[in-house]
């Protein structure tokens, strides 16, 4: 599926990991980010150096309160921003060295919303996901159509195929957007606060789908969210951030410590373990 890359050279560390036989897919190494609002001011650090890794079929949640740098981290991984220091490897290849099209064949970003200027049909929208595989003036062929239909089926949205994008509900739109990402046949799925506009049932549906898709297609999934319990239930790994600092990386059971969470979220809570080994957080009122 992947075309040979001429411009990206695997790092020694990445190659070593490959040789070692470990199946690390995404490797974020000492990545930090800062920007200067104007030239005379000292740069503000949005993100201090942090590292984590993701394996295939794994869901990694980037968790934290508002303005903690979650979205910045996601943008660094997706290639929208260049890290100030550190590097990001996908299957041993540095993501920033990849040309945009190749990167889009490996990394798919799922937005929350999609404002279209001129309305289009759902299948047109999903077919856009095949764009990274186009070459110049190529038109979509039967392979592309099959892949797009598959993507719709996997998100349970096949019945929406012929509908207009501006005439379906938010939850249905979310599924189409996800289908488009799947049509990219990526290695890595990125989602930025995907549950923000969804009701509780839809939230659970989405996370469950992500879990299933990750397992079936061996995606690595990175989700940015602040939903404690969804993360606790579905994530394989958690990256806990507060004010640009990474406080802990690990499976939910290790990260969900009461004192740590209370410090990060500034709210009294309690943590219990369920029968399946997953933590559950209960929030109390502040009085």
């Amino acid at each position, binding site marked *: 599926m992947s075309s040979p890359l001429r411009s990206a050279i695997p790092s020694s560390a990445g190659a070593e990991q490959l040789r070692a036989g470990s199946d690390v897919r995404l490797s974020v190494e000492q990545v930090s980010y800062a920007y200067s609002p104007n030239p005379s001011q000292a740069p503000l650090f949005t993100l201090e150096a942090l590292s984590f890794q993701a394996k295939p079929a794994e869901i990694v949640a980037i968790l934290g309160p508002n303005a903690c740098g979650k979205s910045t981290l996601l943008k660094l991984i*997706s*290639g*929208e921003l260049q890290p100030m220091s550190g590097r990001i490897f996908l299957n041993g290849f540095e993501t920033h060295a990849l040309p*945009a*099209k*190749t*990167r*889009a*064949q490996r*990394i*798919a*970003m799922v*937005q929350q919303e*999609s*404002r*279209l*200027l*001129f309305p*289009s049909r759902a*299948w*047109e*929208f999903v*077919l*856009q*996901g095949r*764009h*990274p595989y*186009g070459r*110049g*003036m190529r*038109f*979509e062929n039967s392979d*592309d*159509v099959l892949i*797009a*239909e598959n993507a719709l089926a996997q998100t349970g949205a096949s019945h929406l*195929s012929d509908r207009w994008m501006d005439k379906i509900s938010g939850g249905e739109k979310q599924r189409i957007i996800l289908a488009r990402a799947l049509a*990219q046949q990526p290695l890595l799925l990125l989602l930025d606060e995907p549950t923000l506009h969804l009701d509780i049932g839809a939230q659970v549906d989405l996370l469950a789908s992500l879990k299933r898709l990750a397992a079936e297609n061996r995606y690595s999934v990175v989700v940015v969210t602040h939903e404690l319990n969804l993360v606790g239930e579905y994530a394989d790994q958690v990256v806990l951030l507060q004010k640009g600092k990474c406080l802990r990386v690990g499976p939910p059971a290790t990260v969900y410590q009461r004192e740590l969470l209370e410090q990060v979220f500034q709210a009294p809570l309690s943590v219990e373990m369920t029968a399946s080994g997953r933590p559950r957080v209960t929030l109390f009122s502040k009085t």
Partner: protein
Amino acid sequence: MRPLTWERLLLRCGLLALILFGVVVVSLKMGAVQVSLYGLGRDLIHVLLGRSSAISTDYGMIVLNIRLPRILLGIVVGASLSVAGASFQALLRNPLADPYVLGISSGAALGAIVALIVESHMAISPEMAGLVTPFGAFIGAAITIAAVYLLGMRDGQMESSTLLLGGIISASFLSAVIMFLMTTLSGSNLRGTAFWLMGDLSTPQPKTLLYLLGIGFLLAAGAIYTTSSDLNLLLAGEKEAMHLGVEVRRVRIVVYIAASILTGLAVSVSGAIGYVGLLVPHVMRLIFGSDHRMLIPASALGGAIALVLADTLARTVVAPSDLPVGAMTAMAGAPLFIYLLRRRIA
């Protein structure tokens, strides 16, 4: 799921081309001077076979020398303006965008007027004389393009809303300068400027210019066409396009320059013709959808059809006088625009 294929694209373009051909034939027939199509067809064959002395019809020469070049000019100008309009609408993510909103037409008009003034003070050989105005118009368009582009850049990113504002302001400013020049400098050359400013296809252009126009159109429209699938994605949003592998910056620059070249070329020979670049893409979008791989060629053909029709009306409605074609497009375009607006809201 029925994505666009080469076959469907060619079929639809073939249909449009057929309509264009029909319009051209009707247009050849209509005019202040009556011609018979059969005689004209025979004359055309004589000419193609090199036997121009065998031309039999009385007015065959008139049609071939005056009407046909005018129709061809209408085709290229109409196609250029429509493709430019479709491109700007995609680029700026604004359905109201067209070459005028960005002030490019006003810049071209000012360049043409300045060229006229300069020309009247210099001695120019006859061969060069016909090229001075279009050259000035093109330079004016290019300068405006660069200025509006720089105005619209912020942090190295082209921002649509700033670009639009910059364009509107430029258009107003340039129009004021034009008015000033026209009132203070009275000269016989400038008399025709008012006519030209309303859009006029009636002046036969030197052949070199026509070739330049045709080749320029093919190159610029071709460049835009290669980015058409990128434009489809840009419509969804810049971030999304980037995540889908579109090199947003490169595409914006290419499309902006190519669309501006198209506008500059068109305005330099025909003056300021309105509504074509704005409305033809909308109508084509209603019929064929907003996939730019279909929309760009459809806009080109649709624009050609629209302008040839408008020009034919302009030269026959109050024959023997020639109305400026821009007046025709405005008269037809404004009601159509209102209709389209209501359709969207309703």
